């Protein structure tokens, strides 16, 4: 019997995988067999549901019961209570999925999903990504069939142009134009490439699409191949994404078996095949010219543009290069039309955007929102607010190329142009929320540290300039900042932006510039008063004991790892600032809250 009365969907994305979803699948399989339910209940490993914070996530249909943080030990209860007796295990349900009348809310009514619109993540968490039939069941490869049998190449390009889709990798260049340039370029051989070298710290949008719905990217690349006149595609994916790589390989194999990749697809005479190329994890290889150099087997370094890839790309041939998320938008646009797509979003930014939400936020995870949704809605409604009742301080978008958005701009609609205006950028979709305890100078230092580490070294502005900037930031955060440091940072930033070779270098100073724009006073406090207002830079902190509150219990002195605290029992203790390493143990241990951090 192929029809099952119940489906147990278990997230197999990297997040839940890491929190043990593989063990759950094994345990479900074992118990279901033991209880002889294998003809009634089907266990499916899916892609990411988005709520990584609550992983591992298990959803049981037809009830739609959303179980969160499931342990191996809980599986038996779910099988015996829910699958056998039909009694939902309430204690494991995600609290927000229970309605007031104790029934289970539909997923689309749960706070985290309510404001979302899932286009590129449409199949993530719904289908088994290792089963091409399930992709086909939800209209997979229908768009490819449509373009090959009903549409001319020009019509396909026109549809993408009219949809208003812009590159989701960060640049935001109109996708349809890119396709048209490659289509118009003269050449006996053309290539279609997919940039899956997602490298921003904290970003995992592309990984989740590849893991949860790999066929959507393959289908879109074949459509692009038809439109621009190419028969060969390459996906450049980082080797640090083992699950994505494995599922892509399975997907390519299955698509070839079905004749959806290969020669004479749908009997139309169109040939297209895709190969994977694994990157070794260099951040710079996400830059298009460096990426193509790496595919060619050369050192991953950027080169000046023009010529742009559309005229002279991979192996010197015209090449179309789009990001994973951009591709995942293509099949729905072909099927539902450009008008449907352009009806979503704002004037200049159409459709949706996927964000990887992280940092000081309750619902860490993956979400997809219509363009124009405000930052406030993302943080407080979808994200569930800041943990511990702390205040929102800023959100960082765009990774090492982006900037910080302060609380005063919480109502900024998220789209390409508004984010640029407030001094940040869309970027590929990393969204890091920071609370009041975050030091903005330290954040800028963190991103500069990343850029210095990842600079390919080809051009001096990036290789040397970012290093000098980092040195200044290191100095400021360790309390050795000098008068004039801010101005030096600004000059360096201006020159690097103007003279670095590639996009990564040109945007590297952005984290510093945007924090200077909104949090200049924090920089000044570090330099002039040698104080860190957020209390995050340890070198600038002093721990002192308040005499009036100290009862002389000696707990702090006992726990101090460097014996910096001395005193007589029952009279106030004193911290020797020379010896203190600012570890904070004394403050944690003090039962009278008599220790102050400043």
């Amino acid at each position, binding site marked *: 019997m192929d029809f099952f009365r119940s*489906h147990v969907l278990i997230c197999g994305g990297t997040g839940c995988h890491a929190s043990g979803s593989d063990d759950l699948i094994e345990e479900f399989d074992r118990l279901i067999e033991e209880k002889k339910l294998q003809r009634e209940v089907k266990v499916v490993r899916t892609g990411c549901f988005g709520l990584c914070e609550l992983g591992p996530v298990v959803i049981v249909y*037809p009830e739609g019961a959303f179980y969160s943080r499931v342990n191996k030990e809980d599986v038996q209860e779910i099988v015996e209570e829910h699958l056998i007796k*039909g009694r939902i295990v309430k204690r494991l349900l995600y609290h927000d999925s229970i309605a007031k009348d104790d029934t289970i809310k539909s997923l689309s009514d749960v706070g985290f999903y309510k404001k979302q619109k899932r286009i590129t993540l449409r199949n993530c968490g719904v289908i088994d990504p290792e089963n091409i039939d399930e992709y086909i069941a939800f209209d997979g490869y229908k768009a490819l069939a449509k373009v090959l049998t009903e549409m001319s190449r020009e019509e396909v390009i026109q549809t993408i142009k009219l949809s208003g889709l812009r590159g989701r990798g960060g640049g935001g260049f109109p996708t349809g134009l890119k396709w048209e340039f490659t289509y118009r370029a003269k050449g006996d051989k053309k290539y279609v490439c997919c940039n899956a070298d997602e490298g921003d710290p904290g970003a995992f949008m592309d990984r989740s699409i590849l893991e949860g719905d790999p066929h959507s990217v393959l289908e879109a690349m074949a459509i692009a191949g038809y439109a621009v006149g190419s028969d060969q595609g390459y996906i450049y994916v980082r080797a640090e994404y083992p699950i994505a790589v494995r599922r892509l390989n399975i997907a390519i194999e299955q698509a070839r078996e079905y004749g959806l990749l290969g020669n004479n697809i749908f009997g139309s005479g169109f040939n297209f095949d895709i190969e994977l190329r694994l990157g070794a994890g260099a951040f710079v290889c996400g830059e298009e010219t460096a990426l193509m150099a790496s595919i060619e087997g050369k050192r991953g370094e950027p080169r000046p543009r023009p010529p742009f890839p559309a005229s002279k790309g991979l192996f010197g041939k015209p090449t179309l290069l789009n990001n994973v998320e951009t591709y995942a938008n293509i099949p729905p646009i072909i099927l539902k039309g450009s008008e449907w797509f352009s009806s979503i979003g704002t004037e200049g930014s159409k459709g949706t955007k996927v964000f990887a939400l992280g940092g000081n936020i309750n619902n860490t995870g993956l979400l997809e929102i219509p363009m124009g949704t405000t930052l406030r809605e993302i943080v407080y409604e979808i994200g569930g607010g800041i943990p511990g009742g702390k205040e929102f301080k800023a959100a960082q978008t765009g990774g090492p190329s982006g900037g910080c958005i302060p609380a005063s701009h919480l109502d900024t609609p998220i789209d390409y142009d508004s984010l640029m205006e407030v001094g940040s950028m869309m970027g590929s979709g990393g969204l890091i929320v920071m609370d009041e305890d975050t030091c903005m100078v330290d954040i800028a230092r963190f991103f500069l540290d990343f850029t210095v580490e990842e600079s390919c070294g080809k051009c001096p502005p990036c290789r040397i300039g970012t290093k000098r900037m980092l040195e200044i930031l290191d100095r400021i955060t360790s309390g050795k900042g000098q008068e004039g440091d801010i101005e030096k940072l600004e000059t360096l930033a201006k020159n690097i932006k103007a003279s670095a070779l590639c996009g990564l270098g040109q945007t590297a100073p952005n984290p510093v510039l945007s924090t200077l724009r909104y949090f200049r006073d924090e920089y000044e406090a570090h330099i002039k008063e040698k104080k860190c207002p957020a209390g995050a830079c340890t070198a600038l902190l002093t721990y002192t004991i308040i005499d009036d509150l100290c009862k002389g219990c000696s707990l702090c002195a006992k726990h101090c790892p460097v014996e910096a605290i001395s005193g007589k029992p029952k009279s106030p203790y004193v911290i020797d600032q020379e010896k203190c390493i600012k570890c904070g143990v004394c403050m944690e241990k003090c039962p009278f809250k008599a220790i102050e951090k400043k």
Partner: protein
Amino acid sequence: MKSIKELEEIRKKTLEKVNLRKDRKGTRVVVGMATCGIAAGARPVLLSFVEEINKRKLMDVTVSQTGCIGVCRLEPIVEVYKPGQDKVTYVKMTPDKVAKVVSEHIVNDRPVIEYTIGYVENRQNK
């Protein structure tokens, strides 16, 4: 695969299997599956429902289970919820009775009176 027809066939065939994962508002068939129900033979009844519904490709019907419905002596009990209509409770169900409930009630909107709790109870009391 050489034709769109083949693609469409795979789509239809697989959709039947995965359609369960979408939120639906159609008919719900709920089988009482507590100890009493299982002992009285609820499992074969549940399987018959699943098979019958699959055979007729009723994409909008879900079969689920519940705990003890309370009238253990009348198990296996099956409740059918159709949108906008009162719940109908069938008692002392057997796999043989399932086809009729599906064709008459679920498909044609005519509850099978002689299997319902009211009918069975009245007859027993007489």
